């Protein structure tokens, strides 16, 4: 079944259909949008049920001709890593769109259509099986978000969008260069010209080329993530965007960066990844501490959650560049965890802002516990999940990440635990200031949870509890793919054999017949030119 193609096409089709809905039929538009998002989730659920958990490579691969002559094909598929990211995207967009049914924005049809376009773009990034397709979706997802912030955003949205778009675009351009360079460099080695990721694995580019190519991709990934110190766009964009969009930016878009490392960076350029792994790891740890300190001292609720995101994403990237099965597994799980927890956190910030009439300065809010007890309870659960208290879903991810990092780079793991302590400090600051003491600056009755909030929070909380109680439900599916993704880098880093679970086939295979024209390449430099 072409599940994956469907998961890209359904939101795209829904978005296009929305444009045909007349301005005054908002109810039809809402129904259509919810239906589209729901259908995507249903297809995803069937896909999860059908997924072979022992298989590491791409499954449900859908291959269509596109531009054969230049090595371009429509190839989408899903493995253990992208499986949950596709589900996360589908689930969170459904939740976000459903919440808009109650909380209608201005020009709702355009808003919904752009959200669905963004969903299609993200799906494409997570599903793409070839580099050009990856690049196209990577850029495509930016456009709807650009309009969403630029047209529905709050103060300083112009500056925010400029920074956001141009900065991330600079990274993308480097990636484009790297993609083309990869294809040509690979052709020099294998004799084949292709953009297909699976075909590019195992190629020995040589140290310098591998490093340069890795770097080209990595810049795009770390800006999108963002990694410290490439996070300059984050505060403005998070603050300026409508809070639904902020939640999605933090929850899903950031994962595209982390995913890029696992799908492209590590498997294709293991030598380059190995050379830069420690540097990225150090930046991640700096990001963890830096983000935590800024979250502690942040003035507004949104900035606090935003900077805490910076710290959490540092953990994820640290897990990826550790080249360790447990750390990698933890990182993949943490991508899902961070996505759902940060959406819950931003939802709660949104609910509190409803009570304050838009004021989001932390010290202006207080005393919710007395008048809004349900909100306070849910807030407590989310705060605990966010600071990764043992027993929460986020703890599982952080625990496995640090288990692996501890094995490989003990100092980085120990330094990263500073972030665990500060997470408690800043999350409790947010939780206690807003809930404890006397009522202040907030109309608690307006802030108490309503149906619309349950629509967002209930599914998210259920998934949080499920992961906390039974992480194997997710991790069982990711193991084979994570092993496969990190094995080349593990070999490049000369890790002990017992840590490497998968053998990497050399590319081209040693017994391959030399292709016509290959001989010319092997001639000595000073050989006679034909």
């Amino acid at each position, binding site marked *: 079944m072409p599940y994956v193609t469907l998961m890209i096409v359904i939101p795209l089709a829904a978005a296009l259909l929305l444009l045909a809905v007349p301005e005054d039929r908002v109810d039809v538009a809402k129904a259509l949008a919810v239906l589209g998002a729901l259908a995507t989730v249903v297809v995803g659920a069937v896909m999860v049920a059908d997924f072979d958990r022992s298989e590491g490579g791409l499954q449900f691969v859908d291959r269509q001709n596109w531009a054969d002559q230049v090595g371009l094909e429509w190839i989408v598929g899903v493995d253990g890593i992208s499986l949950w990211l596709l589900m996360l995207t589908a689930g969170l967009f459904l939740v976000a769109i459903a919440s808009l049914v109650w909380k209608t924005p201005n020009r709702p049809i355009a808003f919904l259509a752009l959200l669905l376009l963004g969903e299609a773009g993200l799906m494409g990034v997570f599903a793409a099986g070839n580099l050009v397709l990856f690049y196209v979706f990577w*850029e495509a997802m930016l456009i709807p978000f*650009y309009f969403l912030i630029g047209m529905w955003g709050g103060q300083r949205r112009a500056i925010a969008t*400029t*920074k956001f*778009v*141009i*900065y991330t*675009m*600079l990274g993308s*351009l480097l990636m*484009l*260069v790297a993609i*083309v360079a990869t294809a040509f460099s690979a052709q020099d080695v294998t004799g084949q010209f292709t953009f297909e990721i699976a075909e590019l694995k195992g190629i020995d580019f040589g140290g310098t080329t591998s490093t340069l190519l890795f770097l080209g991709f990595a810049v795009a990934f770390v800006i999108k993530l963002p990694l410290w*110190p490439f*996070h*300059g766009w984050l*505060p403005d964009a998070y603050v300026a965007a409508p809070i639904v969009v902020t939640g999605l930016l933090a929850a899903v878009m950031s994962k595209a960066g982390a995913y890029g490392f696992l799908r492209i960076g590590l498997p294709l350029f293991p030598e380059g990844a190995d050379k830069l792994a420690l540097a990225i790891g150090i930046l991640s740890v700096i990001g963890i501490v830096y983000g935590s*300190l*800024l979250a*502690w*001292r942040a003035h507004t609720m949104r900035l606090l959650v935003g900077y805490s995101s910076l710290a959490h994403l540092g953990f994820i990237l640290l897990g990826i560049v550790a080249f360790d*099965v*447990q750390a990698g*597994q*933890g990182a993949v799980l943490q991508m899902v965890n961070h996505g759902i927890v940060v959406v819950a956190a931003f939802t709660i910030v949104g609910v509190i802002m409803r009570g304050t009439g838009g004021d989001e300065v932390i010290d202006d809010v207080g*005393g919710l*516990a*007395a008048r809004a*007890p349900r909100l306070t*309870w849910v807030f*407590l659960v989310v705060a605990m999940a966010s*600071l990764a*208290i*043992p*027993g929460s879903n986020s*703890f599982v991810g952080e*625990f*496995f990440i*640090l*288990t692996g990092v*501890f*094995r490989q780079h003990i100092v980085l*793991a*120990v330094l990263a*635990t500073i972030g*665990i*302590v500060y997470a*408690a*400090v800043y999350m*409790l600051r947010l939780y*206690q200031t807003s809930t*404890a*003491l*006397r009522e202040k600056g907030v109309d608690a009755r307006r802030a108490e949870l309503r149906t619309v909030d349950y629509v967002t929070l209930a599914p998210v909380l259920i998934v949080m509890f499920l992961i906390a109680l*039974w*992480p*194997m439900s997710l991790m*069982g599916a990711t*193991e084979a793919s994570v092993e496969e993704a990190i094995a080349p880098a593990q070999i490049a880093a000369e890790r002990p054999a017992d840590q490497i*679970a998968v053998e990497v086939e050399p590319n081209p295979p040693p017994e391959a017949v030399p292709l016509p024209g290959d001989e010319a390449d092997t001639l000595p430099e000073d050989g006679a030119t034909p």
Partner: protein
Amino acid sequence: MLSVLPWIVLALPLVACIVLMLWPTEPDRRITRVIAVGSVAAAFALVIAIFVDLLGRDAEERTEVTTLWEWAAVGDLEINLALQVDQLSTFMMLIITGVGSLIIFYSMEYMEEDRDYRRYFAEMTFFVFSMLLLVLAANYLFLIVGWAFVGLASYLLIGYYYDRPSAVAASKKAFVVNVIGDVGMVLAAFLLIRDLGTLEYTEVFATAEGGLGDGSTSAEAVGFLLFVGAAAKSAQIPLHTWLPDAMEGPTPVSALIHAATMVTAGVYMVARSNALYELAPYAAGTIAVVGAITLFMAATIATVQDDIKRVLAWSTVSQIGYMMVAAGLGLYGAAMFHMMTHAFFKACLFLSAGIVIHAMLGEQSLDRMGNLRGRLRAAFVGMLVGALAISGIPPFSGFFSKDEILAYALAQGTLGVIVGIVGILGAGLTAFYMFRLVFRAFYGPDPDGGYNPEPHVTTWVMAAPVLILAFLATFAGWIQVPQGWKLVDDWLDPVVGTPDLKPSLGLEAATSLVSVALCVVAIGVAWWLFGHGSERRLAHAKTLARYREVLHQGYYFDWAFEKFLIEPGRQVGAFLRDFMEPAAIQGSIRSTVVATLETARGLSFLQAGLVRLYVFTMIAGLAIVGVIFILVGT
């Protein structure tokens, strides 16, 4: 049967908590009471059934691990959601559910005036669940989970009166210090995974000697890191400062969480990890030394406290120091025995104090008390019995448990002798500060200005638990008698072992004589100073003002943390926020963006807006690629 019962024991308080929380409105108080008290009492009954079942088995067949499901399996590491019933966990469960039932029963009346009746009981049952998970866990991961959950319950209950700024601050402090402890535990777990590849108790203890090595750096590191967790949870110096502040919670909470059960979890964990500490002599020695320092410093601080609950809080810190001394020296049986008697007499003391506070409508200052012995009979009996027990006056329970620690310590070589002597001095201080409390609150004249209103007598709901605990505090010591029978040691022996070096009859007798004599003298001094009103006390307080100030400041630990740890962190955070972020990060991105825009304007004829710019850059990028390949290709 043993595979099902512990799960039911664990589920009862959890279900009670969930039912109370999800009840759509504030339930009728009778319903709340039945659910809360009933669930914990039922759990106690089932624990007794488990205990009886274990008694019927051979000593070597009392360990039963049951797995509910495979929680996570990553690489070679497998972690199960599993419970382990054995002598040690059953011992702990008896204390938790037994004392827990009494205290929750007592709370029914103590919290009568409170608006948030349901929230209180929901949080209390959540605590009981978490504490049971902590002791029942069959591996370090779920130990850590239980560890963190009791911390969360403690946080919620310390901050129960959320409209008091002091309670809010105290709860946050408790939580953060506990997270520091969690980090220690988690790092220890990483080490175990790295070197042993497992966290299951049975496998860790079986492979530790081969995998870590006797006396190796790894073994010592695991020992130290676990103790960081234990010190944070059990309020050992320097991670002790949160416990006195934790007295902001309701008094039954202090009795259950901050005296009888949670704060002794560190001792339980060290006893549970005895196989690891055997490989780590320095880490174990450190525990004994830290315990000794803690027991002495906390006892001195307790002598100047004027808040009835703070006296008891510092006393708890000090008493856990005794348990840590024992655990550090490998005297696990003695440590657990003292934990048990301490649970009885300290809960008794706190609940008696609770009667006083309840009767005086929340008044906690000893300055506002005096001559209460006729007015609050049950509280007086409980307080007096508790004070005699904690001071180690025979035949009360504390005599047996404390003297066992001291006598055995003196038989354990040089380190043992040093910490043993500190312990004997501490025993004298204990008698002094406890009877200072008893005399100031229950003897002497009425306080200045008299009582207004007159303290009201509480009903049997609060008196009965106090009297039951007073009974236990009196007689529980008899289950372990020097040179006689050792029921606790024998019961725990297969799990924790028994010490090789035993004190002689002469040493035990001498230790008891010296410590009891010291206590009697201390009680006499306390009577002379505090037995007859405030005159002598105030006169001496003036001459000793300088020393009292040091003690009032708790040896300046809080001050030092604030000055050297928290404030610098705040400064760095503010610096990053106000300078680093705007100048470096935002500055660099601004110049990048501006440079891009300027270049684009300069080069482009499509200079009308961002989207066009975007298209332009894409094309420009492709052009660059083309150029590169032309250059590379030639």
